[in-house]
């Protein structure tokens, strides 16, 4: 395979993983709309979920420019095993502590990825990442503030956040799962290698977790492996349920013009 072709394939893979992660977490978090703990939080969380759908649309549009199908087709008309999202974003919303902790882990990781993408050698992605990063700043501020508030709240709030962290932390490693293009993307300065990003992320969140009076457990390789495979198209059963629900209206008439 020629170098240019391989690079293009690598870029498409990267865009699919970014788009799918944002689409699925966006849909998951939107499930809280109308059910949030207080009105203000309901509005803020729902609006961030909507932002995430917007980010995924931007990535799908970029893919479309590179010859892939229409964004709606990619979002609503793909098989489960065609999705490149990580397992973390697929898990059901759980209670609010769980969703907040996932939001914190996902959005701090997204910060690390966007920082790398903001100096990508692939110009359209670089510009897009710089644009998304502005909006994302609030998302990460929201996640960090909540975790610090509840971690430093009372015994009940702290223990619920710690339980959520214990439960979900192993799945978060899947955000940085290796894939066949990791090295190519790194060598071509399109995005930093996952191993390096993972370390950057752990360095970033460790003090934040500590300030929140919480503890990051030592996660064994076996625990991490349970949540890997997303980038290769292997998903938990939750993704199928989510896609069935998300596409229920679309599937009633796939050719309808909206």
């Amino acid at each position, binding site marked *: 395979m020629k170098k240019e072709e391989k690079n293009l394939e690598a870029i498409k893979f990267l865009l699919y993983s970014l788009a799918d992660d944002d689409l699925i977490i966006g849909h998951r978090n939107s*499930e809280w709309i109308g*059910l949030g703990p*207080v*009105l*203000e*939080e309901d*509005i*803020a969380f729902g*609006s961030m979920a909507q932002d995430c759908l917007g980010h995924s649309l931007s990535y799908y549009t970029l893919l479309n420019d590179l010859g892939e199908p229409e964004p709606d087709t990619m979002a609503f008309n793909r098989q489960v095993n065609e999705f490149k999202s990580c397992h973390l974003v697929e898990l059901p919303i759980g209670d609010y502590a769980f969703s907040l902790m996932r939001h914190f882990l996902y959005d701090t990781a997204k910060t690390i990825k966007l920082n790398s993408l903001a100096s990508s050698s692939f110009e359209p992605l670089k510009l897009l990442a710089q644009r998304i990063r502005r909006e994302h700043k*609030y998302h990460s*501020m*929201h996640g960090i*503030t909540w975790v610090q*508030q509840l971690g430093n709240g009372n015994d009940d709030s702290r223990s619920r956040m710690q339980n959520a962290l214990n439960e979900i932390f192993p799945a978060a490693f899947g955000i940085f799962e290796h894939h066949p293009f990791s090295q190519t993307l790194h060598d071509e300065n399109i995005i930093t290698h996952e191993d390096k990003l993972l370390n950057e992320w752990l360095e970033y969140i460790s003090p934040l977790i500590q300030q929140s009076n919480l503890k990051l457990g030592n996660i064994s390789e076996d625990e991490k492996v349970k949540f890997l495979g997303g980038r290769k198209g292997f998903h938990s059963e939750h993704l199928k349920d989510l896609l069935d*629900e998300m596409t229920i209206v679309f599937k009633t008439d796939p050719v309808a013009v909206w």
Partner: protein
Amino acid sequence: MKIKSLDPRIDRLGIELEPKTAYSPAREMDQWQTYEVFHQQNRGEQHMHVGIVHAPNADMALLYAKELYARRPKCVNIWVVKTSDVTGTQYEDSDMFDPATDKSYRETEAYKNTRSVIEKFKKKNPNLSKHTPELEMAENSDGRPKTKQSNSSTEDKDKKKPGIVIGKKK
């Protein structure tokens, strides 16, 4: 019996149609306190009061203020102030704001007709206008002020910019 809804999210909550225990009324001050939100559209402009948010503390109030009041309009800065920290007058005292005598001449509205008053005055007193620079400017047939071209001496310029002259003399 659980609530059956068209919304699958509601079904997943498994809410009982008839709650087993009666809902107890909310405690007094069950809600978070309120914060007043001030929004600044451009740097240097005044912050404008836009509404309130409920929040447990100032950090959280800022989070909500941004999402509730600064999503659409341009914004560069937000303030939040605890509502309980605001000191205000009493509505019973609001009559103190009503003036006892007519002071409408102090209102900016009163200057609305200044230009037409000048025009009227000028028509009545055509000779006076020659000695009044403002009126001279308005008299130009092409509508543009002619002062720039006509007054070339430095003495005249200094007269027009008294601030600069004073500064130089000092």
